[in-house]
C-alpha cells in the first residue's frame, strides 16, 4: 500500500495527516501481529513481541488496540473495505447471475482470510460470545456490520430489480451474513485439498437458495 512518508516526530501534523499516520501504525501492528500469530499461535503471542516486531513502544500499542479482539475487529474492517473495493472493480461480475455474484464475494472473503486460518479460527468462536466485541450484538462491531449488510443489500436489491429473486427486503442481507458465518465454520474444518468441499457446498447451497427463492419455496 502506497502511503506518504511518515511525518517527522514532534511536528504537529495536520489532522487528516495525523489520522493517516494513525491508520498506518495500526496496519503495521496488525501485520506484525498476524505474522506472529501464524508462527506462535494466538495464545502464544505476547503484546511485547508484537510491539517489538512493529517497532513501537509496548505502551503505545495499547493506545491503538486494547485487546486482541480490537485487533481482530480492525482486521475485519480492512477485510470488508478490501471486499467492497474489489467488487467495485470486478467488471466481470456486474452482469453475473446472483448465485455467481454471492459465490465470488464469499470466495473472495475466504481467500482474504486463508493465510490466517488459525487466527480466524480462534477469533471466530469468540465472536459467538455475547460479550465479545466481535459479537453481532456488540456496539463496537456495528459500524462494520452495517457496512457489510448495506453492501450485500445493494446487490440483492439489484437482483430484485432484475427479477432474479422476489422482493425479500432487509432479511436477505442478514441471511447472507449468517450463511457466510456457516460457510466459514465449514471452511475452518474442511480437510479436503484446496478446501474443495467448501467450494462445492458454497456453489450448491447458493444455487439451491436462489432456486427456492425464485419458486417462492421460502415463506418470509
Amino acid at each position: 500500500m502506497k502511503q506518504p512518508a511518515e511525518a517527522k516526530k514532534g511536528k504537529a501534523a495536520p489532522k487528516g495527516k495525523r489520522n493517516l499516520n494513525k491508520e498506518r501504525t495500526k496496519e503495521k501492528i496488525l501485520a506484525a501481529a498476524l505474522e506472529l500469530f501464524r508462527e506462535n499461535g494466538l495464545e502464544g503471542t505476547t503484546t511485547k513481541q508484537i510491539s517489538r516486531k512493529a517497532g513501537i513502544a509496548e505502551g503505545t500499542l495499547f493506545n491503538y488496540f486494547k485487546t486482541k479482539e480490537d485487533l481482530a475487529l480492525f482486521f475485519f474492517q480492512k477485510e470488508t473495505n478490501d471486499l467492497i473495493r474489489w467488487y467495485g472493480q470486478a467488471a466481470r461480475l456486474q452482469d453475473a447471475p446472483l448465485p455467481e455474484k454471492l459465490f465470488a464475494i464469499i470466495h473472495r472473503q475466504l481467500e482474504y482470510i486463508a493465510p490466517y486460518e488459525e487466527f480466524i479460527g480462534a477469533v471466530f468462536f469468540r465472536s459467538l460470545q455475547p460479550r465479545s466485541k466481535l459479537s453481532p450484538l456488540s456496539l463496537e462491531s456495528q459500524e462494520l456490520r452495517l457496512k457489510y449488510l448495506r453492501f450485500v443489500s445493494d446487490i440483492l436489491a439489484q437482483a430484485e430489480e432484475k427479477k432474479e429473486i422476489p422482493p425479500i427486503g432487509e432479511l436477505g442481507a442478514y441471511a447472507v451474513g449468517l450463511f457466510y458465518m456457516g460457510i466459514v465454520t465449514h471452511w475452518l474444518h474442511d480437510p479436503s485439498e484446496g478446501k474443495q468441499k467448501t467450494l462445492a457446498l458454497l456453489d450448491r447451497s447458493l444455487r439451491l437458495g436462489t432456486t427456492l427463492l425464485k419458486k417462492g419455496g421460502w415463506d418470509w
Partner: protein
Amino acid sequence: MGLVKPKRSSLGRATRLARLGAGLTGSYLAYQLQRPFLDDREKEVRRQALGRKSARQIREDLQDLRGPIMKVGQALSMQTHLFDADVVQELAGLQMQAPPMHGSLMRAQFKGALGKYPEEVFASFEPEPFAAASLGQVHRAVTKRGEEVAVKIQYPAIREAIETDFRMLRTAGFAARLTGHLKESVIREAERGIIEETDYRIEARNLRHFATQLAPLPFVRVPRVYDDLSCERVLTMSRVRGVRLQEFLETNPPQELRDQIGTGLTRLFFFQLFRIQALHADPHPGNYLLDQDGTIGLVDFGCVKYLKSEIVRCYAQFWSREWTNDPALFAEIIHVIFGPEVSPAEPRVRRCMAEIRSFYDEFHPLDGPSRALDLADSKFMDGLNALAKTLLKNKFLAPDFLFLSRTESGMCNLLHTLQARVATTQIAREWMPPIRKTGQ
C-alpha cells in the same frame, strides 16, 4: 453430498434412494419366494419380466438423481455377467453430467488445484467451456508458448460426493437387495473404478501410454499431456482437431471419406486389441474427433481396460475360426471364455459357438477377406444385436470377454451411423496374435 439437481433436497434424495432399495427388495423378494413353485421355463419368463421392469425403474431413478450415482449405473452395466441383457442396456444408457461451473467457481477450483488462476498460467483462457465432461467441463486455452490446449477441470469434491453416494447406496440396502447376485465385492469394484476416474493423473498416464503405443498409426491423434499444468483435478492437454460424429455427418462427407474414417476406426480398434491388448474403453461417439483429412483424434482416457492375453487370443479365434477343425483349440476357447467347469460337449456351449461362427461366417467371411462389409446394412446390425443378446444371456461367459464383445458392438454402431464400408476381416487379421502361446 451428491450432486443434486438444485431443486431437490438431500432429504428427498435419501428417500428416493431408499425407495429404490425398497422397490427392488420388494420385487426380488417376491420373486425369490415363489421360486420353488415355478418350473424352469416359467422361472425364466418371470425373471426376464422382473429384470425389464426393475431395469427401467433403476434407470429412471438413477437418471433422475443425476450425480455420481449415475456413474454407478454405468459401472454396473460393465458387469454384464450379473444382469439380463435388458438391464445392461438400460444401465448403459446412463450418462453422467456434472453440474456446470460458472466462471467464478471454475477459477476458484482451478486455483485450489494448481495454486494460480488460469489467466496467470495461460496466455489466453476461454472462460466459457466448449464441452461438458462427466465430472467437469473442458475449456479452450493457449499456453504461454502459443500452443492450443484443452483444459479439463473437475467439479469440486466429486470424489467425496461419490464416496458419500456409495455410503448412501449401502445404507439404502440397494447393494444387498439387488440380488441374489450383486455382491459387495462387485459394488466395491464399481466404486474403485469410478473413484479412479476422478483422478486425472491416471488419465494422464493412460494418455502417455497410448500416445506411445499408437505411434505406428499415423492417422490417429492422441493429445499430449502438459504435466506442469495438470494434477488430480485439472488435465491440460494439446487440443486435437476434428469434430464429433454427428457434426461430421452434417458436412455430408463423401462415401470415400466415410470409408477412410471407418477403416481407420476399425484399424484403431484391432491395433489396440491385438497389439496393445488394452482398450480405450468408452466407445462413446464424443470421444472420437473426426477430421476432413481422414484422421481421427482420440480423447478421454479416463477408463482404459487392460485385457488378459488369453482372452485376446480366444477372441482372435472368432476372426480366424481355426478352432472349427481343431478340437484342442476349441476346448481351450471354451475353457477361457466359459470357465474351467464348463464342458465343451454341453449343448448350450455348442449352440452358442455355432451362433458365433455363423455370424462371423456370414458377415466377416474368410474367403475374400479384402471384401468390404457395408456397415450401413441393417441386416448386419440385426445379426450383431441378436448375437449380443445370446452372449449377454450366458451368465457363464468371462466378464472380460463380454466387455470385449460389447466394445465391438459399440464400434460397429459407430461405423453403422457413419455408413462406412470396411474390409473388417482383412484388418482384423493384420495384427492377429499367434493362435497359441509361443513354445506351446
